[in-house]
C-alpha cells in the first residue's frame, strides 16, 4: 500500500516537473513557476490515483483538469495572473501523447505495412479506440481549462459595464 502511494507520488512529482518544463517553454512569468509545479503535481496525483482504481482515463483526465481549472480561479486572484498562464502548462502532462502515438502508428501500419486482412482489422480497432480516446481526453482537458471562463464570464462582463 505504502509502496503504491510512494509510486503515485513519484509519478506526480514528475508530472509537476513536466508542467514546469512546458511552462518555461511557453515563457510563463517567474512568479507563476511554483504555482504551475503544484497544480501539475496535484493534477498528476489525482489522475494517477483515479487510474489506480481502474477509472476510465477520460473521466480521470476530466476530473483532474477540472481540479486545475477550479483551483486556478482563486489562484489567479492571489498571484495576479490570468488563469490560462498556469492552467494550460499544468494540464500539458495529461495531453494524450501516447494515444496519438498509437493512433498514428496504427494508421501507418494499416496503410503501408500490413497486408493480412485479419491483422488489418486489429489495426482498424486500434485506430478507432486510440483516436477517440485521444479526442475525448483533449476535450476533457479543454473543458477543465475553460471552466473559469465558462463559470465567470458574467462577472467579468459586469465589471466592464460598470
Amino acid at each position: 500500500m505504502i509502496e503504491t502511494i510512494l509510486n503515485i507520488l513519484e509519478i506526480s512529482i514528475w508530472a509537476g516537473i513536466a508542467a514546469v518544463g512546458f511552462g518555461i517553454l511557453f515563457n510563463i512569468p517567474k512568479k507563476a513557476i511554483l504555482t504551475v509545479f503544484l497544480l501539475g503535481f496535484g493534477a498528476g496525483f489525482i489522475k494517477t490515483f483515479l487510474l489506480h482504481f481502474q477509472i476510465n482515463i477520460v473521466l480521470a483526465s476530466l476530473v483532474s483538469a477540472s481540479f486545475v481549472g477550479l483551483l486556478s480561479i482563486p489562484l489567479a486572484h492571489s498571484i495576479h495572473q490570468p488563469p490560462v498562464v498556469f492552467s494550460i502548462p499544468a494540464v500539458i502532462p495529461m495531453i494524450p501523447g501516447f494515444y496519438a502515438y498509437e493512433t498514428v502508428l496504427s494508421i501507418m501500419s494499416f496503410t503501408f505495412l500490413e497486408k493480412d486482412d485479419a491483422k488489418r482489422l486489429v489495426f482498424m480497432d486500434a485506430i478507432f479506440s486510440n483516436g477517440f480516446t485521444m479526442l475525448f481526453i483533449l476535450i476533457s482537458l479543454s473543458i477543465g481549462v475553460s471552466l473559469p471562463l465558462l463559470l465567470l464570464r458574467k462577472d467579468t462582463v459586469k465589471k466592464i459595464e460598470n
Partner: protein
Amino acid sequence: MDTTNRLKQVADLLLEISSLLMVSGANTNRVDLNIDRFASVLNCESFSLISQKTIILTVVDIKTGENYTKVKNLPSHKIDFTILSLISKASWNAIDQDWSLSRIRNEIKSLKDQKRYPRIVVLIAVSFAGAGFCKIFGGDYLNLLVAFISTFFGLLMLQETHRRLFNVYINVFLASLTASTIASLGVYFNLGTQPEAALATSILFLVPGVALINSFSDLLDKNVLNGMVRFANGVMTVLAMALGLFIAMLIFELK
C-alpha cells in the same frame, strides 16, 4: 478631422494589442475581452473579425458615432504567456486608473521588450519535461535518461532550424526525426525496462498542446472558424511529428 485622426491611432493600438495576444497563444475570447476593456477606456466601441493570420477591426467613437476600420496581418506565432499576463494586468489597470491613449501605447511598447528565458534554461527544462513524460508512461530511470537526451537534441534541432526560417512543419519533422532517432537507439540496444516508453515520449515536446486546447476552447465559445483552424494546424504538426517518428522506426526496423 481630429476625431478621425484619434480613431486611427486607437485602431492601430488595438490592432497591435490583439495581434500580440493572438501570436502569444491567447484564445479568441481572451483577445475579444482584452480589446473590449481597452476600447472602453478610450471611449470607443470595437468590433473585430479575428483569424489566425489577419485581424479586421472597426472602432466607433461612442460620442460622435464616427468609425474607422483597419486590417492587420499577424506575424508568425510564438507562445509567450508573460505577454498574456502583462496585457491582462495592463487592461485592468487602464480601467482602474483611466489611462490615456499615449499611456497605453507606452505600456504596450515597454512590454514588447520582455526577455524570454535563456536558451539553455529552456533546453534543460523541456528535457526534464520529456523525462517526466517518460516516467508518467512507466519508464525506469535509464529510460528517463534516454528521453532526456533525445528531447534535448530534438529541441536543439527545432531551435536551430527555426532560426533558418524553414517552413514550420519541416522544422517539426526534423526535430521529431532527430529525437526519435536517438530514442530508437535505446530500443535497438534494449536499454532499461521500457525503451518503447522513451521512444513514444521523446517527441512529445513537439505536441501542439496550446493549439489543441485553444482549438477546443474556441469551439466551446462558438468561435468555430478559429477553432477549426487551430485544430487543423495542430493536426498538421502531429502529422509532421508522426512522419519523423515513422522514418526513424523504418531506419531501425522497429515495429
